[in-house]
């Protein structure tokens, strides 16, 4: 059974069909790319998958569970975590606290224990700290654990956002243009990080990307979106060699 199974997803905003009859199947462990020109509806697909928008038609299944009508929060609990195109960190909180927010559905104690620092508070907090540090090490952020998120350099902010998403122990990770605004060095480093996440956590990843080099370098499969519709779907090499795809891309950029 596929991990993510999306069938005939459509959504309209004020008469404009932003996403039209979108289908995608992602197997467990795949690194899948979603590409397309500006305004093709890529982020809208992410917003549909994470319940920010509700589709007019279509079904989204995660690991066999229908999540089409669920809220963003429930969908996260079901196992989808995401990052954002314009980084959305908890800016006034420290790096480790950003990750611990992601951990808070896994490691629990009651509000009363939290307010009075009694009961399970100490032991659970300790576990959270350890778990958070493990994650931060993977992303090479352990030295910045107490830095305010807003004070991190840009590339590290991107990494922290991925680390926070991973902290919610998702089945599927959605990355929205992770390389946006990065220089070639940072992009190269990011590619390594993504590869590492996949290996280390055996993660399934769907990635929106503009940077063709990044996409062709790491994704096995691609879906090309144009004007809200699927233009082409399949193995990376075949898709990138497709005439229609090239035409759509030459039209812009």
């Amino acid at each position: 059974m596929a991990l993510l199974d999306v069938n005939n997803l459509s959504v309209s905003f004020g008469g404009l069909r932003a996403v039209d009859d979108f289908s995608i199947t992602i197997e467990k462990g795949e690194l899948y790319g979603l590409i397309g020109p500006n305004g093709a509806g890529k982020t809208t697909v992410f917003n549909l998958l994470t319940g920010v928008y509700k589709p007019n038609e279509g079904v989204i299944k995660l690991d066999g569970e229908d999540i089409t009508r669920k809220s963003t929060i429930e969908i996260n609990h079901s196992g989808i975590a995401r990052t954002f195109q314009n980084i959305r960190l908890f800016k006034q909180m420290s790096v480790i606290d950003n990750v611990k927010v992601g951990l808070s559905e896994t490691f629990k104690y009651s509000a009363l224990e939290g307010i009075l620092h009694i009961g399970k508070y100490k032991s659970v907090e300790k576990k959270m700290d350890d778990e958070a540090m493990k994650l931060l090490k993977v992303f090479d952020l352990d030295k910045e654990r107490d830095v305010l998120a807003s004070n991190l350099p840009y590339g590290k902010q991107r990494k922290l956002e991925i680390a926070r998403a991973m902290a919610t122990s998702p089945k599927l990770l959605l990355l929205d243009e992770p390389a946006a605004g990065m220089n070639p060095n940072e992009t190269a480093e990011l590619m390594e990080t993504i590869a590492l996440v996949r290996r280390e956590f055996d993660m399934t990843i769907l990635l929106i990307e503009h940077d063709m080099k990044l996409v062709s370098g790491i994704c096995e499969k691609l879906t090309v979106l144009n004007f809200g519709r699927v233009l082409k779907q399949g193995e990376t090499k075949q898709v990138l060699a497709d005439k229609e795809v090239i035409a759509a891309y030459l039209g812009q950029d």
Partner: protein
Amino acid sequence: MKSKKIRDNYITYAVVILAYIIFQILASTGHLSSHMKGLLVPMTYYAVIAVALNLCVGILGELSIGHCGFMCIGAFTSAFFSKVTEESIPQAPRFILAFIIGIAFAALFGFLIGIPVLRLKGDYLAIVTLAFGEIIKNIINAFYIGVDSNGIHFSMKNSMELGMDPEGEVIVNGAMGITGTPHDANFTIGIIVLLLTLIVVQNLVNSRDGRAIMAIRDNYIAAEATGINVTRYKMMAFTISAAIAGAAGVLFSHNITTLTASSQYFGYNASIMILVYVVLGGIGNIRGSVIAACILYMLPELLRGLNTYRMLIYSIVLIVMMIVNWSPKVIDYRKKLVAGFKKG
């Protein structure tokens, strides 16, 4: 950092205890005038409500300008209880029960008001909290409750409408409020309440729930995507904040002979005064709120000449503080200045 946070909390407790000791020594050696002594309890409840408001503004990130409404509820419900049971329950347990009642009612109203209010954001939320604060004040002003041998009587018209036996007693007398609440509050109890408040709020900030609340403040869209139940945590913070404001109200009503729901104490201007304490102490800085509340409350009382200009100065400081701390241009300029210092 973890230990630094904890150490930070202990510094706050130490500051409060130190202040308490100093004032007690001053009082026992006769260095405090009776006027000054009278200011000690108000100082503690203003510090308490400032911490409550900072939880709402600084930690939750939503501006409430109706927090004195919750204080009002805490004050009236507890004063009503204490007055009715003055003869039947000894002082100590009665006052503890009064706290529980005042806090519970304020929390209940915080919860009920929070349901609609927290669906809103920013300016709308602020103005609706203001509206609720005024509604609470208005309704209490039109409320008459009396007790006689038949039980409790209510009216929204006047005390005559209560229809009581001749020996019945009017407890809440509309705009005249409650008179003769037992004078149970004192400086020591005020300080204990303040310390408990600080423990609750500072511990909360360093807990799973506190982090969730701050995550919502910093970016609610990301918080939702991270699986944080935004509504639940907003409600939690708002309710706790209201409950603490209620505790301040209990201190208030048990330190005053005649309790009225007047604008001076419970109107939005009073709420804004608390906001001044919070802003000047630093939004999100709990210890700052306590210090600012104490200093700003005491200072004009000590320097009588300043009193005329007090509010004027506060308002200017408020504007200047906001611009200095939040203006993007000023922040840029400050960063450059700091960088320049480091180089030079």
